[in-house]
């Protein structure tokens, strides 16, 4: 059954074709789509922070890049995904407000995207496409029937990867 599965902030969901996974209004957060094109299973994560070991509260693994990715990966494997076939596409990591002296906290979008790239590399997952940075929000959708990753913005149009 075709279904649109919503992924909230600091959450991840997995599913299989013909469903789609969607996450609305990413700013500095990063949306990570993992997909196995052969079995057409995949997942979408909406992470807020790069590193669970740097945070005082790390009870929710879906909030952090370093924990959300392995957790979601395992669930995709359980759904029938095969490690060597799983590929990644990412979007988000914007800096919504610009101040003259941007502190570390303002650049969290950049750090989020960087952390995601590093963890994907460590897990040996190929990053096929990315649309990160800028100063605007994005809505991302992973279509599990064909693996297309759609990125929608308000003023910068819509892209498919």
């Amino acid at each position: 059954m075709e279904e649109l599965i919503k992924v909230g902030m600091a959450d991840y969901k997995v599913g299989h074709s013909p469903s789609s996974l969607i996450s609305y209004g990413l700013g500095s957060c990063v949306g990570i789509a993992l997909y196995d094109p052969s079995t057409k299973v995949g997942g979408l994560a909406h992470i807020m922070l790069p590193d669970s070991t740097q945070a005082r509260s790390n009870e929710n693994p879906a909030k952090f890049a370093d924990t959300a990715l392995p957790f979601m990966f395992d669930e995709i494997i359980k759904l029938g995904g095969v490690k060597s076939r799983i590929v990644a596409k990412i979007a988000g990591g914007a800096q919504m407000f610009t101040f003259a002296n941007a502190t570390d906290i303002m650049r969290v979008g950049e750090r989020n995207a960087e952390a995601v790239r590093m963890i994907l590399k460590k897990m040996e997952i190929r990053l096929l496409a990315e649309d990160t940075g800028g100063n605007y929000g994005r809505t991302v959708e992973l279509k599990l029937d064909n693996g297309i990753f759609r990125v929608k913005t308000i003023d910068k149009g819509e892209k498919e990867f």
Partner: protein
Amino acid sequence: MSEDILKLSALQLDALREIGNVGAGNAATALSQIINRKIDMTVPQVSILPLGDVPDVVGGPDAMVAGVYLRVFGPAPGSILFLLPRDSAFYLVDMLMGRNHGDTQLLNSMDESALMEIGNILAGAYLNALSHFTKLTLLPSIPALAIDMAGAILSVILIQLGQMGDHALVIETEFTTEFDGVKGHFFLIPDPGSLAIIMAAIGVKD
């Protein structure tokens, strides 16, 4: 559960609501004088929400909004966000710039400055009240403006809170003008740790 905000007593929440009431009252008065319109204001809601639910307060994470963001400096730092639906922001600019209702469709740099200045004045009025109650000197940063999806704009604040916990303490007031259909939400989101300082300063233990 290590989060301070989940341990607040009913009395402490009442104190926050009262501060919100006076602060938002000041801010509404200031706004009303600038645009020369009567402004209605709801009683502030003090809510403790899971981070992911905060965008629902303003119509969901993909609602189109204008947001003026300011940092609060001083002994109890935090963030202030004045969020209004994009249409409302345009109507507000119509009033500020003396245009007819509905004329503004895109913001030029002067319009953007005007909206930021509104955020500045509202934040100043609000912080005056908070400073008065707490005897703490709290100052706003210069404002920054973004027009985008509510989730994207709120993520700036929610990420900061996310380092400490999974919930946000939101003191939120809704403003409405009588005839022009301008609606806005005013958020005060104390940084983790600031709440204890505010509570100690107003002498409400538990």
